[in-house]
């Protein structure tokens, strides 16, 4: 998985590509830890992610909790169909804020 990041209006957008699994999870965990030292507003654009496993999901939940603790949020956008199904099966779509695209996601962060 590769990650490209971009700062927009006090928020940080990260674009993820490839498999997001237990192997890649530590990389994103430490990235989120580092970013939240500066801002708790994070958008993860996952339109390039074709696979996600439960360890990766727990990274997202952990990041979401951390951002909300800091009065921000970690929101997700651009889910591919097979990835969206995983969010629905685990009902994480009820916990994480998921948007269609980056613009909607950014607007949600105000």
């Amino acid at each position: 998985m590769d990650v490209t990041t971009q700062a927009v209006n006090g928020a940080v957008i990260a674009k993820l590509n490839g498999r997001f699994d237990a192997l890649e999870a530590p990389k994103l965990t430490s990235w989120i830890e580092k970013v939240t030292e500066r801002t708790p507003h994070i958008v993860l654009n996952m339109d390039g992610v074709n696979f996600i496993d439960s360890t990766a999901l727990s990274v997202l939940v952990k990041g979401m909790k951390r951002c909300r603790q800091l009065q921000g949020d970690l929101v997700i956008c651009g889910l591919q169909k097979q990835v969206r199904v995983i969010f629905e099966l685990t009902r994480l779509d009820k916990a994480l804020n998921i948007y269609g695209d980056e613009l909607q996601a950014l607007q949600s962060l105000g």
Partner: protein
Amino acid sequence: MKTGPSLIQFVQQHRAHLAALAQAWLETGANTFGIYGEQGWLAVWPQAPSVTQPAVCAPLIINGETIAELWVIGIQQPGIQIRLQIDADTLLRMASLEADLERMTNELITSQDQLVALFTMSDSMRSRLRLDDALAALTRESSRALKAEAVCGYLVNDPPLVAQDPQPIYTPEHLRLFLEHVEQSGGRFILNAAEHGNVLPHQMQHALIEPILIREKLVGILVALRLEDPFGSHDTKLMRAVCDQAAAQFENVMLYQESLLRTRMQTEMQLAKDVQLHLLPQRLPSVSGLDVAAAALPALQVGGDFYDFIEQPGEPFIFTVGDVTGKGMPAAMLMAMIRTLMRSKARGLNRPSPVDVLGAVNDEMYDDFTEIGMFATAFVGQYDPRERVVYYANAGHSPVIYCPAGGSAQILEADGTAIGVLPVCNCENQVIPFQPGDVLVVGTDGFSEAHNAQGELFGNERLCALIESLADQPAQHMLNELYSVVAAFGAGHAQDDDQTVIILKGVRD
């Protein structure tokens, strides 16, 4: 001319040859032949003349110095002088060849001694199973090979290992500085008292410091110290050989220690696996109106999946299935916690509904899960034999498949998020009729996400079709088929995730 012990030795060693020469001279008319040194005759045939007579002389010259002379008396022929000089030269050449031979023999013996010492050292180190023992053996056994008065060894370790023979010469700190110097200078170095007297204690005159390298990585040093002889090129070669041998032995010890550690960890993992297996129900429940089968197959030695049955007289039968995110030991530890908590909440609350159980577990474990950064999906079902219904609540768990008798199998989707995700449980109690022939399969994603060599997932659709095709079979038969069909699908591909399942089938009482 001089008559040192070496000259006397020379005459003794060559007496036979000198006697042969004397014989030849006496036969050709001479009356006396001998070797004459500073102090007089050293050897003479047939005996020393009583009066001084004119003699023909030829000097024996070694290294530009005349050490003695050959004398012939009583013969006056042309060419005598030349013949005698040839005898003298031949004698000297033989002596020189013999000296060479002796030197070579001595060197051979020394090399052999050193080889034996090297072998003894390797042999002594080989039997050591710990690094400190091996280092002690090295310093003890290498001093003989190196002809050193003292040897110090230092190995990088935590804490560093030091061995010195026959007594301590340096502090560990000194040796560490030597090691640093080796690291910076890139190799061995030699010290002598004239230049580096301050770093040569105990009247030592010479020190040779050699790196010990394992696969080109500096792991330690060996220091050889001498009171007299300086270290020459022969010594440095030998020191290199000693250190290479030692490095090979140290590497063996390290590999042995690693394999020991690995075995210990494997044993502990096996113990953990046994403990975990004992946390699972040891027998199937006996519930009127239900045919039950259950199994768990961890992908690693320990896993994060669990299932449980809670039977209490006069109370509805409760069953739980859960999956902690992640794998291995952390998941296994949380699994043990959540399973126990679920059991105590299911028993402790007054006639709890499935949501009551999940809510209470979420309340208790939310902070821990947040701290650790994990969560767990969980399903709690409650079968009431009087009503013949199953109440359930599903916190993000899948797959859960319900197949009513004669009907089609369908996925019962979760309505709440997993435990540990949100501070408050957002599940609701659901209910399904459970008459004879109805089937409920609560599995973990190890089945639906099993994939084949092409990376294709087994998926929920295949799972539903399979359950539907097996729905008229007893629960245990369904379970066996489920495992074997999913295993066949992923044939040749290692099982990625734990596979845990409970199968409930409604039967007539």
